[in-house]
Structures are given as C-alpha cells and as structure tokens.
C-alpha cells in the first residue's frame, strides 16, 4: 500500500471521529444548558437550591462540565508524553517521539484551557480570578514544566538529540507531578485554610452524572482526534525532511528519465 493511500485511509477515520466529537460537543452543551438542573448549588453546607454567591441563577457551576474533562485530558496527555518518551528512549523509533511531542502540545493547550475555565469559575465563586489554591497551582506548575519541554525542543541545536533530551524531561516532569501535588497541598495548610470546595459531590443527580461522563467521553474523542491530526502532521514533516535530504543526495535527474512517460 502506498503511503498516500495509508494517509487517506487514516484521514477518513479521523474525519469520522471529528464529526462524532462535533456532534457530541453540541449534544453535551445542550445537556448542560437544558437538561442539568441549574439552581442546584453544589457547595457542601449550602442548602440545595440556594444560590451560593449572589442571587442570579447559578450557571457558573456548569463550567465544571467542561473544566473537569479538560483537566482530565491534560493529565491523560502528559501520561501519554511519559509513555511515548519511555518508548522512544528504549527503541529509538521516531514515531514514539512524534507521539510524545504531539501529546505535550495538546497537554499544554488543555492545561491552558483548564486554567482559563478555572479562573472563569473562580471569579464569581471566589471573587477572584486567581488564588493560590493547590489544584490551581499544581496545574500552573504542570503548565510551566511542559511549556519548558516544548521550548526546549524548539531551541535544541540538533533535533535528534533535542528529542532524546526532551524525552528525559518528559519522564521526570511526570514523575514530579505527585511530588509537586503534595508540596502544594501541604504548603497551603499552614496558612488560613481556603474554603474547601468540592465541585463534584458524591450525591450527583443522574442527569449531572450522565452529562459529565458523556462529556468525558467526548473530550477523550477530541484528544484522540487531535492526536491523530498532530501525529500525522509530525510524520509528514519527517517525510518531507527525508525527501529533501534524499533529493540533495541524488544527482539531478537525467534527461531520458524525465522523458519516459
């Protein structure tokens, strides 16, 4: 099978997936706005149906149907960076590196979105866009680590060596996550305690649970679709570089070769 047909085939699969994700997004958003009950305040200790911060309908909470899947995709993506990096160092195969690189980019994108949605929620709920809440801080540190990873790749003098060193960073970055997490949690506890807000209490009504799970699936689909697109781009870049190098090595085509039909 020629590389072109392979590309086209995987292209069809990706298109179908993208279409499914698009439909899923629309359905999910519709569910958030029209199906899930709105007035329910999920803050523990606040009576059901009571507004939490002001008297307007409590739409704010609904951002969690986006925020939680986004955060989950970010972690998933960084987990894939770890796996891809390990496999790349073990086998030296380029495709593992392309996988890790793609996943790091998507992970950084989703960490950024996670911070953004968190801030949008925090403004009306906590009264501020930013607070040194431990989860928020952890996410921010993750963002920094993997932005560093991408920056490193961009600045590497030799791409192959850059890829190998980036893999080491990708591995240590992920191993570091639980350590950063605990340091954040313990660091905060000595200061005036934040009001601990548990957004997803265990007593979720069915509509909320279903919407959340549904969106988790949709976002996973989105991640896979983005990965397919991005790794395909990575392979294409690689193939282009190979072709260019091969072209340079070969003497210019002779006239009779060009003349053959």
């Amino acid at each position, binding site marked *: 099978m020629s590389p072109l047909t392979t590309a086209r085939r995987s292209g069809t699969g990706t298109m179908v997936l993208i279409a499914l994700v698009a439909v899923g997004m629309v359905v999910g958003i519709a569910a958030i706005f029209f199906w899930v009950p709105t007035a329910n305040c999920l803050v523990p200790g606040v009576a059901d149906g009571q507004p939490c911060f002001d008297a307007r309908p409590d739409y704010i909470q609904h951002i969690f149907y986006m925020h939680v899947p986004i955060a989950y995709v970010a972690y998933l993506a960084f987990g894939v960076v770890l796996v891809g990096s390990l496999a790349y160092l073990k086998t030296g195969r380029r495709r593992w590196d392309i996988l890790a690189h793609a996943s790091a980019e998507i992970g950084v994108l989703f960490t950024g979105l996670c911070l953004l949605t968190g801030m949008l929620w925090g403004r009306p709920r906590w009264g501020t866009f930013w607070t040194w809440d431990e989860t928020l801080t952890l996410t921010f540190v993750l963002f920094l680590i993997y932005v560093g990873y991408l920056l490193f790749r961009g600045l590497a003098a030799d791409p192959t060596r850059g890829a190998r*060193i980036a893999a*080491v960073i990708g591995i*240590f970055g992920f*191993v570091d996550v639980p350590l950063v997490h605990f340091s954040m949690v313990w660091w905060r506890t000595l200061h005036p305690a934040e009001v601990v807000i548990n957004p997803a209490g265990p007593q979720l009504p069915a509509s909320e649970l279903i919407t959340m799970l549904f969106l988790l699936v949709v976002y996973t689909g989105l991640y896979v679709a983005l990965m397919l697109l991005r790794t395909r781009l990575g392979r294409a870049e690689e193939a282009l570089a190979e072709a260019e190098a091969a072209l340079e090595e070969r003497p210019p085509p002779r006239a009779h070769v060009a003349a053959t039909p």
Partner: protein
Amino acid sequence: MRKMFLLAAKDLRSEARAKEIAPPMVLFGLILVFLFTLNFPPGAGQAPVPGPVVGAVGSRELAGAFLWVSLLFAGILGFGRNASTEREGNRIEGLLLAPVDPAALFAGKALANFCYLWTLEAVLLPVFVLFFGVPAGLLLPGILLVALVANVGLAAAGTLFGAASQYVRARELVMPLLLFPVIIPLVLGAERLTSSLLTGGGLGSQSRWFILMGAFDLAIVAIGAVAFEFIVNE
C-alpha cells in the same frame, strides 16, 4: 564509584586553581541576601515567635523563603558553569570515550555541584543569621540536615538540567526555565522546614516534608543516573 570521586576531584581541584565558580556564586548569593534584607523590617528577626498569623506571613517564615531563594539563584550559576566546563573544547567526548559508566559521569558532576552548594551555604548561612538577626541557636543543627537533603536533590537536578541545557541555543535562559518548576517540591520543603526551625517549631512536626524531599532526591538521582547517557551521548 571510584571514578565518580576521581571526576569530582578533578572539578574541585580545577576550581581551587581557577576560582571561577564558587566565588561568583557566593558573591551573587550575598547580594541576593542583602537585597532581601532591604525588604525586611528591622529587628523582625529577633521578634518573639509569631503565633498563628492571619492574613499575613510571619517575618521569620519569610526569612526562610528568602534564604532558599537566594541559595537557589546563586546555585544555578554554579550548575551552569560546572556543566559547561565539559562542553567547552568538547571535553565530554574525552570522558565518553573512556570506559566509564555514564552514571558515574553524572554522579561525579553532581558531587562537584553538591560541594559547591555546601561552600555557598557555609558563607550564606552565617551572613543570613547576621543580616536577618535570627537566633543561630534555633537554626543549628537542624538546618544542616535540611541543607543535606535539599543539596542532594538540587545538585542532581542541577547536573541533569545543566547538561541538558548545553545542547540548546540560549542555554543560560533555558536552564532556569527547566529547573525551577520541577524543583518546587524540594524548595518548598526546605523553606517550610527552615521556617519551622526559625519559629521554634523544630523539625519533628514537619517531618513529612523530609519524606517528600527524600522522594524527590531518590527520583532525580535514579533518573539522572539512568538518563544521563541519553543526554550526553550523540
């Protein structure tokens, strides 16, 4: 193991003659401690142990943070310089050609960094006590234990990321960008433990930080030893 000491001794002996790492490091550390002192209310160090402070951080807690931020910033200068001595004149190739385990190369470099950190602290700690007017009796000997656990991780991380940043453009910039986010657990732990010493809390109440820092040390040393060859080999 023996070769690790040989390599570290080579760096330290060279430094003892050239004096191009430790003196600038120490001087920079002093400048930082001085700058931080300017922001510190006079006599705050002697003030009685602050109780639970609401809405503000006790001065002595802040002092611990200042100390570690100064050490870290000064330390990173040394890490970069220590790594680049092998990069200049491609000397790392000479070491890679010798029958030495890359893990020993890593350990040798890390050991040299470890010694530079102790040198830095040997000067900065007394100055810190003087400038901030904190009682030395509270700090010793606990601070030595805190420094030991912190230095292991800092030296190892500084070696790993110092070596990594030799192979990029703008390496002086890249190294702190890579290093600072990952060593957060270590630095927060050291700060918290130092603050606890300064406010008379001792180390016992905060022992979980030692576990966290120890876990960091273990992770970075293990990954550094295994992964160093992927960084320095072509």
